[in-house]
């Protein structure tokens, strides 16, 4: 039976099954959009926190570290209450759309990227503090230098965020609704197809997810070597 399932799954991939690739396409669009928004906010914020030590910094680092482990379903539920018709942001009318899914994944990744960026820049700042202070640079120039010096580590951080977002199911299921041809992504499709017994498509999607995970791991490994 397993051989038959795998054979059908491979066939779906090799024959570029339109349904399968529509799901992959949406998944990548949602996750990459979330990643782009999240790193645009989180990398500067994480780096900023290293330089400006005050109560706000300690608070943000504490919150980021805490939220890193937040269950995605809880986050999904929170966003659901905010963007549902009766919610504070109900007027945006984004519930059960890819926008809500992007929002959920962005909020899921931000604490991870902020915390890991803070850690990387903090470590690098320890190594370069004397040199950068000796050069009499402004904090902005120091920050730019440290971000550049951490470039490989920060790419790894971004890939970690991508991995977390692409594997997430709970939040996007709640705020996206898993609507066929509209908000169905790889993880929600796997859950849905498995529940209705259509295991072949789920396995094909699972294989794609594994391949993505393998690619990310290989890139992270080589980036660590370079950096």
């Amino acid at each position, binding site marked *: 039976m397993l051989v038959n399932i795998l054979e059908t799954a491979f066939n779906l991939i090799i024959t570029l099954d339109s349904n399968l690739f529509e799901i992959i396409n949406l998944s990548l669009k949602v996750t990459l959009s979330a990643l782009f928004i999240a790193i645009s906010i989180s990398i500067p914020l994480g780096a900023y926190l290293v330089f400006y030590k005050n109560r706000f910094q300690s608070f943000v680092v504490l919150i980021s570290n805490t939220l890193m482990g937040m269950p995605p379903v809880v986050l999904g539920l929170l966003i659901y209450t905010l963007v549902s018709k009766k919610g504070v942001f109900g007027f945006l009318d984004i519930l059960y759309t890819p926008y809500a899914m992007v929002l959920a994944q962005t909020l899921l990744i931000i604490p991870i990227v902020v915390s890991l960026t803070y850690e990387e820049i903090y470590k690098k700042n320890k*190594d*370069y503090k*004397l*040199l950068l*202070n*000796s*050069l*009499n*640079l402004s904090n902005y*120039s120091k920050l730019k*230098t440290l971000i550049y*010096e951490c470039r490989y580590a920060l790419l790894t951080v971004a890939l970690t965020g991508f991995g977390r977002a692409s594997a997430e199911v709970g939040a996007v299921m709640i705020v996206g609704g898993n609507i066929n041809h509209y908000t169905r992504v790889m993880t929600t499709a796997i859950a849905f197809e498995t529940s209705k017994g259509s295991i072949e498509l789920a396995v094909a999607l699972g294989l794609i997810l594994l391949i993505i995970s393998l690619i990310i791991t290989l890139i992270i490994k080589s980036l660590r070597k370079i*950096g």
Partner: protein
Amino acid sequence: MKILPLKINNLNYSVNGNNILKNINITCEESSITIIAGNNGSGKSTLLKILHGLIEVEKETITWNNYNNVKIKKYQSMVFQNPILLNRTVRENLEYIAQSNNKHRKHGAEEVIRRLNIKNIEHISAKYISGGERQKVAIAMAIIRDPKIIFLDEPTSQLDPVYKNEIEHIISSLSNDGVKIFMTTHDISQIKRIGKEIIFIEKGEVLYQNKVKYFFSDKHCELIKKYINYG
């Protein structure tokens, strides 16, 4: 711009209640190489860091020809005991420093690469070069800013005799070009070779300050005698 004399007025510095420097009063008019000597933990490196503004003290404590330390910082460079180089090629390190000091990036780098004879390593990543080469690159990074004062914290302590000799030549040539050098070292023969003035510190206090030529002939306390004999 004239930067000397350097005056240190009643400098005290402590960390967690431990006095690192105690009541330091120095007037330095020597324009070439001033050696700061002393046993480990005597406060030499801390003094250099304070003079370079890496450790802040009250403005009036240190003056350079009546200018306070903050005003003079842009004319200073420092080479650390363990050279700090960015994770880039040697040339990129130099270009970065040149650019951050509004110097012409390529021209500035070219000049110091030639002067320090590091053309052979210019395109190698700084993490793959030897200890001696790292020290030369760190000095190149210090001089690319055209400083009037350079602080060198034990620049040859981990080098073999060949590199030590090369670095000493570079330091002497910088001094001949009018750059004021402050340098810490434990190496007595090195003090004899390149030092012009010496400040000897022990447990955060200045025990001796004079021309190097007198350091070896003057009568000293037991501690300095031992330092000279065992050095």
